[in-house]
Each structure stands twice: as C-alpha cells, then as structure tokens.
C-alpha cells in the first residue's frame, strides 16, 4: 500500500501572548492509503490539534508532514484550502450544516470551491446523497432533519469531491447509540471502497470500529496498534457508549 501520510517528529506549539504551550511532541507515524485509523485520547491529549494539522487546517510548528510524498510545510493558505477541498472530507461532531439550506445545497458547498465542471455537480451531489441513503430528503432544509440525518448529510458533503481521506472528529458525539451505529457502519462501508478514514474520538467503543488505533496522551503517541477485536455494527443494532 502506498503511503498517504508520513509524519516525522512533528510538533505543534501555540503562542498566546508570549506564553508558549507545546501541544504535540515529536509525533511520527505513517498512514497508508485505504486505512481506517482511530486517533484516541482524552480531551486535552492533543488529538484535535493533530487532526487539524493532518487535515491542513493548521501547520506544524516543527518536524515534517508529507502528504502523498509532498512536504506541506511551504504551502500558502490558499494552497492549503485547495488541498482541503480536493483531497479531504471533514465530518464534525456538531455537523456544521448551513442552516435554512437544503440537503442538496449543503452537499453542493465543497463543489462551489472546486474545479469540478458545473455540469457534473448535480450527478455528484445526487450520488453522494444516495450513498448515505437520504435521496428522499434531498430538498429538506437542514434544520428539518434529525441528528443522524444531519450527520449523514455531512458525510455526503465530505464525499462529494471524492477525497482521498476523510477526517471524522467525534462524529457520533452528539448522536444516540443507534444512530451512532449507522454512522460508523457508513464509515466502514466507505473504508471498504478504498477511502482512507481518520476517526478522532475519546470513546473506546467507537474507536474499535477502526482497524488501527493510535493513542495519544499529553501530546505524545503512547500506543499504535492494529485492532484485533474490531467491531462491525449491523445497521440499526446500535453500539455501546
């Protein structure tokens, strides 16, 4: 499997009015194309910061981050935006859909900043909505949807630009266990189609759906191992929380 992400001694510091806080310390690991990796850690462990760096929302303070063999250190803000748009899909804990906007338009959003020809938009959007099983909700406004439906719209939005990697930041954090199961099953399905998925969570059970778990504590990787007893949730069965 080709390497998608290579981290070498990556660190991240924040400077708040002269007070320097080091959040990530010399992190090194690789992620291969098509892997389903869970980044686990309690709050304050630095997992969100790590996701921001991996997801091109933030830059590392030191060390190296190669994405598809390219060093991202020298990228400008707009180049980062371009990579986010074309390579990355985000799924957030609080869904982050545009209010008073239809499912269709929400899913369309990343396409508006992409180079995908306009005549392909409609098909792409409809395919993505179909993939998460919301075709009949296409013209609903985002605030008319349930939490689970909202997150599925967010997944469709993450997929619409055919990214090579999806970052899911506590995607089940605001959902009941049954709905959470559906979301995790959907992610596993996407993984099977060859999309790399990085799941950031503090819940052991959610993390167990991945095939590899990287544990973070105080900004350091404390363990990085393959999950042996991986959970496959049948759709609608629910997961333990």
């Amino acid at each position, binding site marked *: 499997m080709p390497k998608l992400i290579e981290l070498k001694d990556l660190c991240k510091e924040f400077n708040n009015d002269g007070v320097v806080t080091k959040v990530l310390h010399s992190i090194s690991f690789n992620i291969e194309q098509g892997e389903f990796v869970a980044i686990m850690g309690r709050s304050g462990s630095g997992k969100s910061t790590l996701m921001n760096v991996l997801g091109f*929302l933030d830059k590392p303070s030191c060390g190296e981050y190669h994405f598809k063999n390219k060093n991202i250190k020298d990228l400008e*803000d707009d180049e980062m935006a371009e990579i986010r748009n074309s390579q990355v899909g985000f799924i957030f804990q609080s869904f982050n859909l545009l209010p008073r906007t239809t499912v269709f338009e929400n899913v369309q959003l990343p396409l508006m*900043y992409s180079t995908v020809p306009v005549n392909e938009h409609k098909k792409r959007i409809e395919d993505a909505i179909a993939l998460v099983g919301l075709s009949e909700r296409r013209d609903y406004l985002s605030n008319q949807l349930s939490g689970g439906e909202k997150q599925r719209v967010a997944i469709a939005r993450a997929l619409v*630009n055919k990214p090579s990697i999806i970052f899911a930041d506590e995607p089940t954090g605001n959902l009941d266990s049954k709905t959470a199961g559906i979301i995790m099953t959907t992610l596993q399905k996407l993984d099977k189609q060859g999309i790399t998925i990085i799941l950031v969570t503090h819940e052991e059970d959610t993390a167990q759906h991945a095939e590899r778990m990287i544990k973070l504590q105080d900004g350091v990787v404390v363990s990085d191992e393959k999950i042996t007893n991986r959970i496959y949730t049948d759709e609608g069965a629910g997961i333990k929380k």
Partner: protein
Amino acid sequence: MSIKNLRASKMRSFLTMLGIIIGISSVIIVLSVGAGAESLIVNQIRSVGSNLVGVLPGNSDGDGPPAAVFGVVITTLTNDDKKALETQIPEVVAISSYVTTMEPVTYQNQKVTANIQGVSEGYLEISDSDVASGRFILDEDETLLSNVVVLGSEIKQELFNDQDAIGQTIKIKKRNYRVVGVLEAKGVVAFQNTDKMIFVPVTTVQKKIVGINHVGFIRMEVDDEDNMDYVVVQAQEILRDRHNIDNPSKDDFEVANTAAALGSLTAVTSSLKYFLVAIAAISLVVGGIGIMNIMLAAVTERIQEVGLKKALGAKKKDIIWQFLVESVSITLIAAVIGILIGVAFSFLTATIVRYLGYDWDFVITPTSLLLSCGVSVAIGLIFGIYPASKASKFDPIVALRYE
C-alpha cells in the same frame, strides 16, 4: 446564496437599504425636478416676449438681482422716465410702465379681488397679447387718466359669465370704470396668470387707485436683437441724465435685457441643484456606513459559516467575493428602489405642475440613472470590502468552534 442571506433578514436588509434608497431617490428627484424647474423658468421668461429690455428701480449690488425683486419699494422710477425713453430712443417699438396692485372689484352683486395691472398702450405688443373684443388701453387714456379697464379672459368670465362685458361698468374703490375691451386667453406668463388680470391705464392706477407717483417697472421692446445692448446703454444714459447721476455706481435703477436675466436665473437654479445633490450625496455616505455596520454584524454572526466554508476549501477570495456580492446586492437593490421612487416622485411633480397650467419638462437623463447605479455599486464595494476582508481572515479552526 448571497440573495438568500438577504432574504433571511428582510427587515434588517430593508432598514440598511433605506439610507441608500433615500439618497438615490433624492438625487434623482433633485436632478429631475431641477431640470424641470429650469425648463419652467426658461419657458416662462421666454413667454414674456423676445427683444425685451426691462428697467427696474433701485440698483443691484454686483451680479445679484435688483432690490425691487425682493419686494423693497423704491420710488425713483416714474412715468415721465417712460415718456423720456419712448421719445428719445427710436429703436424702442413699444414701451409700458407697470404698476401692480390687488383690489376688490364689483359688478352688480359680483365681488372679486383682482390683480389690477396699470399699463400703457405698448403692453399689448410687449406681451404678445391680443384683444378678443373692444380695444386696449390707449395713450390718450393714460394722458387723461381715463376710468377704463380691459379684462383678462378669466376675470371677464368670473364677473360677466358669457354676457357681453364691453360698455358695462365695474367698481374699483368706489369709482366707476367702463369696460372697453377683453383680451384673448394667454395662460401663465412669467408665473403670473394674465388672464385673471384687469388692465387699467397706468396713470389711473397711480393716482386714483393706489395714490403714488412712481411706477413698479418699465418694459420696452426693441426693434432688433442686435440693438439690445445699444438700447440698454441709451436707456442708462437717459435715466442718469434725468436723475442727475454722474457716477454709474450710484445708479438708482437697473436696465437689463431678458436674455441676461434668463442667464442669471438659470445659473441660480443650477447651482442650487448641485448643492442639493451634494446634500443627497451625504445621505449616500451615511447609507454606506450603515451597510458597513450591517456587514460587520453579519460577518460576526456568520463566523461559523465562514469557518466551515474555509474548512471545505473556500479561499480568501471566495469569502471576500461572497460578502462583496452581498453588500453590492444590497446597494444595487436599494438603488433600483430609489430610482423607482425618485422617478415616480419626479413624474408626479411634473404631472401636478402641468395640471396647474405650467410648462414643465419631465426629464430623467440616462446619465443620472447610470450614475445612481454606479455610485451604489461603488458604495457597496467601498463599504463592503472591509467587512469582507475581515471575514476572509478568520482562522477556520477558531471560526468552526465559535459559538
């Protein structure tokens, strides 16, 4: 998407637009009504007649109008001055003194307050008026202080209806006056409806009705346009001689041709117009500040949306573009509403003024419309760029977490 955001907060968008709407409609109204008023004044003055030279009592300071225009009574000009001008300048083809007053006029049981105009025989020629029946005032009437009147067409109707007025007697200040003529309808001239006037020999008005020795002003018609300047100079010299004035700066009269008066009045109206446009422009600036205010509020309110869009790949220019389109949409919609209101108001003004019998052009120049739209777009851009660039600089991580 920008339009959608505007619709989501209709009331707020509307209030924001109000400043621009008022500004744009004011500009349109001022320009249109200004042009209309200009046309009205020009037409009114032209309707007085061409090749006219006026003599007003009192001197004007520099370029301003003479004091008589402001209602100051000056008694230096007399009917003898008129006689002197008449006999000494051969280029003058008609001349009339004017004394104006308002008096109650009675015919049998009818009583109306009418505008009494004391004039000379020359009035008919100067004002391009025509006698409908009977005759006009003659030089002999002026010499003899005859008790004769000539009626404007409307006042004739008021007093006599369709009955023949010639030979009838009307009463002004307890004296009897014989109606010797009725004029054709002429309409409003120089803002005065001559059809409602009663014409009386100027000397009769002076002595028997008002009790004065001076005249309001003198007007004369010159035989040729080329002789206008010459006649003005001649009149000045004759009057200076008669009034014993050796220094022109001490003139107690003002001789002017109507073309010059036209020029100065047009200058006044157009400078007034630009002054009003400048005031309207201030309201546009105020409106622009309102736009900036509302856009800054919108930027803060939608910080999460901006964060999300940036996370999904929106570049700085995408965000700037979005907010600029929004602010320009606001100002452009406001401009269109402002133009509609302005045009409607101008049209209403023109309709009303025309209904009142004046000659008023309804002018909306394409330039003023284009200018309004252009200025609005510029305001949207100028006052939208700061909020837009502020939004584009949000850190997506911070913006996404913002509650």
